[in-house]
């Protein structure tokens, strides 16, 4: 694993590149993290997933959005367009570092939302994994308690200061935000209910996207684990690696 900063010097992003094991494939995989605390809690799972994908011959890049994790900046200074731009920058970086011509994106929670938005704008993304993806921005904001008392308030939620601009961006996310065009897509759901994701799958299939939904309740990688437990969503990781292999 090679940790490094990349991108413009005034806007450097943190990345961790896992080179492929023995049998290298012409496939790079960018892991798009969720936002805020969910990214911190998902870190061990993303690290394990990156290793497994690298062992399967892929070039893998984990990264932090500007204003999050180890990357430069503050979250309050960013918005959804910035996060999408960061995904784009990460793809370009991985294609350069790994010398690959094809890329797959894996996105967990809001990282999935961003991955889908970016995948719809590029020709070189040929696989997409949407893992417990957020497809209802209003529901997501309510879930993380990001409801402000005043419209101009910056709300503390999920370890972030969510600005009115970011809130407006997130609120605008609905099922209609998801392509087409989208590449071959796997929707992975680990929550007990998959109703929203079934609707997303149906929408994508009706738009001629090659889309599969796998619904298997599992450990939620993006939630805080109680002290003393080390459970990882190993079955979900196996499914993702198998699908991409």
């Amino acid at each position, binding site marked *: 694993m090679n*940790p*490094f900063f990349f991108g413009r010097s005034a806007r450097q992003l943190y990345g*961790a590149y896992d080179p492929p094991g023995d049998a290298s494939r012409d496939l790079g995989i960018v892991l798009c993290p969720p936002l805020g*605390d969910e990214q911190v809690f998902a870190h061990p799972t993303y*690290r394990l997933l990156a290793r497994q994908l690298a062992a399967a011959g892929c070039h893998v890049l984990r990264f932090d959005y500007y204003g999050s994790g180890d990357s430069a900046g503050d979250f309050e200074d960013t918005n959804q367009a910035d996060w999408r731009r960061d995904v784009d920058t990460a793809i370009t970086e991985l294609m350069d570092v790994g010398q690959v011509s094809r890329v797959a994106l894996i996105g967990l929670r809001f990282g999935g939302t961003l991955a889908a938005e970016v995948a719809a704008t590029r020709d070189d993304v040929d696989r997409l994994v949407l893992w417990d993806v957020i497809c209802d921005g209003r529901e997501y904001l309510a879930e993380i308690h990001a409801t402000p008392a005043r419209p101009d308030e*910056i709300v*503390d939620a999920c*370890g972030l200061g969510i600005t009115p601009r970011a809130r407006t961006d997130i609120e605008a996310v609905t099922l209609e935000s998801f392509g087409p065009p989208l590449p071959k897509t796997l929707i992975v759901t680990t929550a007990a209910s998959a109703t929203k994701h079934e609707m997303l799958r149906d929408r994508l299939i009706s738009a001629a996207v090659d889309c599969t939904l796998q619904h298997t309740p599992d450990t939620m990688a993006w939630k805080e684990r109680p002290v003393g437990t080390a459970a990882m969503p190993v079955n979900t990781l196996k499914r993702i690696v198998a699908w991409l292999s």
Partner: protein
Amino acid sequence: MSLPFREKVVTFGEGKSLVGILTIPAEPRVGGAHVVLINAGVIHRVGAHRLYVGFARAFAEAGTATLRFDLSGIGDSERQSGEWTLSLADSVTRDISSALDFLSAEYGAERFVLAGLCSGAFDSFEHAVHDPRVVGAVMIDMPGPFRNWSYFVQHLAVRVLRMASWRTFAKQLARAATAPGDQVQSERDRREAVMTGVRMPVPVEQLDANLHTLLARKVALAFVFTGGVSDYYNHRTQFRLRFPRAAAHAGLCVEFVHWSNHTFSTRKARAYITGFLKDWLTNNAL
């Protein structure tokens, strides 16, 4: 506009398997100490709610370089060889020593301040006792034997005034009357274990002795407690009453942020603790 610092990815330790981010001030303070931030539990080096990132950048504004890194097996740091033959305490000691050795060799650092939240506080304190290079330590919500009579007086005073507490008390009494003694004890042990993470609890006499060792060595100490650890700390003067000799020493500072939770989840709380520690470093010439 240029930033008052730059950030650099660093790797060190055996096989360069430990990963950290070094925040280097644009205008370093001459003779200043280097701060090293220690993981809070299994949260990687950014800290809960990015607390450690904020610390490092604020300290850099005051001219202090800060390394925040992952202990082996946490975040991006690999487990090192022989990991399974070491106790957790020995593994942590080895990793912190590696960080200090690295900063000495690569950046000429000679004086260090260790800082951390929760288990990171515990590890900072324990390492400071045995490493003479450490000239300051910050312990935020350090688990330990801080409860004393004044804790229980405060605890009871608050409870007596709350009606809901009486109902809970009645339920607990009924449960204790029917549960075997060892079951009650194991419940208490489990709670203690959660509080200390997986660190071994330290007897009060040992903590008192270690405080004296450090203060005699002129190590500046800052203890911060939040409202999130009301299980063992619940009023401003508790530390002074528990450790009167140490508390009388000018090198020791105690802050009680009762209005914040354990992980400083609001921007207001993060800004407060960051400013407090930045000032503490400056005031102690660290």
